[in-house]
């Protein structure tokens, strides 16, 4: 048994464990244990990865395991990780761990809730470890579907509508994606020989440019929809607004990263020429995303909508950076994914906790919460500051890396869109401060808020986990950045051959 498969097996075992539990308490404990193990495993993976690199292991992917699955289609169950996947896995395990604690108090069908949640996380883990497009896509869909139930059953507001919309739009995206992947597959052996789904194998061949031109947009948009690419992002506000806390966390925190990761690992890596040719279209779209999401967030009144639009903006930045196709920007893209994952998860966790107390998410109905719940207030401010890119927290590192990377292009077009993207930092500040001001500061508007309690232990645990991670990246980004940067090298090598 290879170490990577454990990331899929542990969730499955946890689900089985939950199935045999008797009451909500046991369910929670089992989930926490399972995901705690997962977190430890992820930490170990990071350690193992770094020490393997230290020891001079230069392979593109480490801890590889490869089992033939469907021999005649050359489908394998192939796993392996590089620094990027390791980082994403670490992110996921942190967010899931925090998510479990953030949903500690789910009362309605707790068993089913945790099962779905953990299944979802299993899908995400599987996605990140996959080296085979087939299994990658499989895990991708596994991750999307439990979302429907999670939002539909445990959500709030127009949950059925939101759940359906989210599911269908993401599935629509995966329609494009599937065609793209099949296109890559069928063109993976232009010189004859067996077709393959294996990313590393495909990366070695040059897919004919005509095919690339056709399948790059499909693949990119397919992943882009999950990454909230304008104008396919509208599932995100509704979906996030209706989803229960942990689901919003996981979805915005991790699932949307599947989009960015996929766009990078599949669309750019495997179809570099077309990516280079067509990137301008998507650069325009993503830079619109960045600014548009931020502007959209300014006028929202619902906390979750604000955050959803902010995610559109931040995830837009991820795709934007990926499309810049140089090492720095891509490095930034990955950092931004992790950073956004953590901070948006923190945001949603906090929003959930606040909502659980105030029973409203409308900022104009709240105010002065800092006084009643200082812990949550401070955490919210930290999340906000991370979101607007305060140095010392993760957002800053990521955004700066992206901006400096994007600015390395000498032509006017790239420069202008970079500056457009950069300007989002001001707009972000506007909406973040607006929320923080309206929500936490000022006088308390509603008397019954005076009796609200501050965070409970599990909420604190959830919050602190995320804050620590955010701060850790913000303060010491170099190891992460180096880890990612080294792993980007194969892509960069490939790109430098193509792009003069």
């Amino acid at each position: 048994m290879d170490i990577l498969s454990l990331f899929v097996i542990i969730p499955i075992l946890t689900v089985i464990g939950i199935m045999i539990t008797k009451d909500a308490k046991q369910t929670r404990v089992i989930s926490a244990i399972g995901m705690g193990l997962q977190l430890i495993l992820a930490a170990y993976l990071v350690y193992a990865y770094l020490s393997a690199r230290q020891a001079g292991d230069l392979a593109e992917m480490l801890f590889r395991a490869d089992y033939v699955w469907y021999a005649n289609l050359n489908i394998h169950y192939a796993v392996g990780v590089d620094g990027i996947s390791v980082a994403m896995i670490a992110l996921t395990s942190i967010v899931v761990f925090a998510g479990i604690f953030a949903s500690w108090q789910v009362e309605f069908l707790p068993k089913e809730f945790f099962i779905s949640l953990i299944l979802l996380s299993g899908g995400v883990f599987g996605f990140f470890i996959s080296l085979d497009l087939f299994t990658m896509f499989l895990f991708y869909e596994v991750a999307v579907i439990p979302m429907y139930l999670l939002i539909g059953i445990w959500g709030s507001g127009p949950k059925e509508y939101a759940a359906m919309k989210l599911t269908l739009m993401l599935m629509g995206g995966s329609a494009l994606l599937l065609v793209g992947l099949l296109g890559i597959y069928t063109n993976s052996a232009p010189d004859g020989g067996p077709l393959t789904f294996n990313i590393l194998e495909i990366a070695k061949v040059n897919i004919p440019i005509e095919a690339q031109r056709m399948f790059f947009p499909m693949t990119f948009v397919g992943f882009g929809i999950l990454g909230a690419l304008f104008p396919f992002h509208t599932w995100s506000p509704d979906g996030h607004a209706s989803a229960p806390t942990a689901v919003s966390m996981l979805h915005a925190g991790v699932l949307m990263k599947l989009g960015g990761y996929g766009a990078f690992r599949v669309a750019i890596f495997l179809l570099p020429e077309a990516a280079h040719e067509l990137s301008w279209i998507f650069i325009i779209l993503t830079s619109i995303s960045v600014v548009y999401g931020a502007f959209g967030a300014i006028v929202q009144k619902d906390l979750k909508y604000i955050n959803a639009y902010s995610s559109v903006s931040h995830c837009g930045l991820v795709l934007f950076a990926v499309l810049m196709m140089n090492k720095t920007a891509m490095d930034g893209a990955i950092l931004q994914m992790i950073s956004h994952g953590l901070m948006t998860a923190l945001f949603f966790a906090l929003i959930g906790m606040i909502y659980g107390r105030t029973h409203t998410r409308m900022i104009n109905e709240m105010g002065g919460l800092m006084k009643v719940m200082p812990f949550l207030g401070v955490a919210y401010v930290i999340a906000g500051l991370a979101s607007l890119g305060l140095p010392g927290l993760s957002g800053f590192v990521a955004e700066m890396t992206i901006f400096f990377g994007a600015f390395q292009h000498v032509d006017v077009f790239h420069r202008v869109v970079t500056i457009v993207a950069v300007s989002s930092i001001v707009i972000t500040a506007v909406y973040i401060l607006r929320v923080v001001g309206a929500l936490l500061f000022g006088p308390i508007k509603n008397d019954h808020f005076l009796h609200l309690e501050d965070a409970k232990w599990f909420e604190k645990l959830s919050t602190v986990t995320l804050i620590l991670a955010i701060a850790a990246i913000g303060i010491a980004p170099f190891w992460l950045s180096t880890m990612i940067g080294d792993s980007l090298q194969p892509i960069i090598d490939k790109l430098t051959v193509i792009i003069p």
Partner: protein
Amino acid sequence: MNLDSFLLMRHEMVLTIITLMVLIADLSFNEEKKIKVIWLATALFAINTIIGFLPNISGNLFGNMYKNTDLQWTMKNILNLGVLVVLLQSVEWLKSADNKYKISEFYLLVFSTLIGMQFMISSGSFLMLYLGLELATIPMAALAAYDRYRHHSAEAGIKLILSAAMSSAVLLLGITLIYGTTGSTYFDVVALKYANIPLQTLAFIFFFSGMAFKISLVPFHLWTADVYEGAPVNVTSYLSVISKGASAFILIIVLFTVFNSISMIWKPLLYIISVLTMTIGNLFAIRQQNMKRFLAFSSIAQAGFILLGIIGASSIGMTSVVYFVFVYIFSNLGAFGVVSVIYYKTQKENMDDYNGLYHTNPKLSLIMMLALFSLAGIPPVAGYFGKFFLFTAAASSGYYWLVFIAVLNATISLYYYLLVVKAMFINKSETPIAYFKTDVPAKIALSICVLGIFFIGFFSIIYQYLESISFGI
């Protein structure tokens, strides 16, 4: 005739024998004992299924009129498995007071239609194909009208027999023209003499229309929904799964072996039909309230996906079609199984009636959800693999846009499958279906389906085996 020949066509022979045994049993049992026919027939059929799985001998009999290869052997076994599940699901229904006097008839009719299908699959000439087809159709009408005092059932019966009669007339017209232009009804001979000349194309199109009727491809599908809705649930599941699967099997064999020389005609034809089928099926399914009708339209849409595998005309395509049907049998029978269990317990078959089902009958809801997800092609259940391979087959022949349309349609289909899931899991109901115990045979049947849905995808051996016996043009 020798032992080898017997083994060669044992599916049909054994089935004929047990049909006769059931008939004899029916005649010799007195009225009180007749209920035992259920167990006898089910047991016999189970044995038949097992016998079917014994190692195969390939070969031709009756001057190439009957062909048996590993592929056909597999197809028949798949059908047997499906029928076994259907039989298990039907037990409760047959025990009901209405059916007291016609228990064995049900088995006789099911078995004889199955014989027809198996001969059809094994046919080596259009004559056998036609006879098999009719044998699979005519008694089916009686099955559809089995609850003859229900208006819907009676209507289903007449709609099926009349539509089928007309479609087989058109099919026959096609066959005559084939015969007229080639001088033979034997597949091997026809295949040699077929070309893209107008009359032969016309002949092919008439023939195809008749086959499309059986698989319910748009625009030859219109009977499907009415008949599926009217027929008793178990008959519907039999129709929608076994009958459709068998027709799809023979269609792909005929297209690949007999009409391979005019693939430039039937590929675009299938392209059009496939797009139409998926789209129309889905559009109609969206607004259905009756579960049977709903599944009928969904199964029409599924038929459109099957064409994706055929259209590639490769051995991957054939593999994926057989594989898909195999998976589809479990998925659809799972769904129909739940519908039938609920129907016979509560007489409810509307989607609204399913509101809040999860809270009273969680297991049934879960099975239903799994089955629907499998139909929708959601991983990790088997339906995903089925669809994926179909798409791969079409894509490897370059039909990317078709795949795209298909995947979009899969998304639409997901929408309406999710409506059912929503009803069961999310919607609240004042009067949900109360908790009840499912009877044992149905439980076994559902368990088989769940196992199938869960594990077929994971064990690539099945696909590998199918690949080894498949062929392309």
